[in-house]
């Protein structure tokens, strides 16, 4: 897998973790069952995301920032040729399985970075 794509995946997963703490879905459970201090956790996730973003190459980082400022989803999974950012079939899915995730690709419709799953 492309290393930049792997960084983007990690960033996306951390952003989802952060979202679960701020949109109310996981907030109570994390605080009550797991005794997490929500504000500290959010700050720690933000720091980690920024650390990882600094490792992106300039071009990828600039694209990342443009998407990240607008939407919670930066990387969209592609499952059976469908981009799950916009639910449109993407042409990149025609690439052979072996070539998948070997470079950073974006969805031509919604702009998300693409990660081929499965």
């Amino acid at each position, binding site marked *: 897998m492309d290393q930049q794509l792997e960084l983007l995946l990690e960033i996306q997963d951390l952003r989802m973790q952060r979202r679960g703490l701020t949109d109310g879905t996981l907030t109570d459970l994390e605080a009550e069952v*797991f005794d997490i201090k929500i504000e500290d956790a959010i700050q720690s996730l933000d720091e980690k995301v920024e650390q990882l973003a600094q490792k992106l190459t300039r071009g990828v980082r600039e694209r990342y920032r443009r998407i990240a400022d607008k939407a919670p989803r930066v990387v969209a*999974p592609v499952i059976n040729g469908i981009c799950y950012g916009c639910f449109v079939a993407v042409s990149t899915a025609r690439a052979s399985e072996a070539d998948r995730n070997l470079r950073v690709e974006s969805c031509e419709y919604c702009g998300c970075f693409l990660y081929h*799953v499965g």
Partner: protein
Amino acid sequence: MQLREFFVPSAIKLDLAAETKDEALKELVSCMGLDGKSEGILYKMLKRRENLGSTGIGRGIAIPHCRSLVVTRLRVAFGRKLSGLDFKAIDEKPVRYVFLIVAPPLEVSNQYLPVLGKIAQFGKEADVPELLAEISSPEQFIELLDAKDL
């Protein structure tokens, strides 16, 4: 929705080889049938969640959990280590029972929260640690979930 629907026998390990928390996470991640790269990413995410605070909720039970793009549906695993693992749990006691839960970023059926909640509820029942110590097969583990009607 019943918890038993999510557990498959191949992801119920009653005798973990792991000697440490990290090894236990890796061993349970390896039950999920993912490729090596995806396993590595998932492990890293679980570690990142642990870094925010241990998922050891006390009385020997831990519930490591995360969402990740590398999985396409919710998956769970159970691991038991009767000699105990240092999980930096809330009560500082060794962890003997580990419930792993991973989910994709967005699920149509939104099962992550209810499954996590049910497992937490299961883990808080007074007799559960004792009952988990006694089971001797994955089938008995499933029966225990049924008996608790979760």
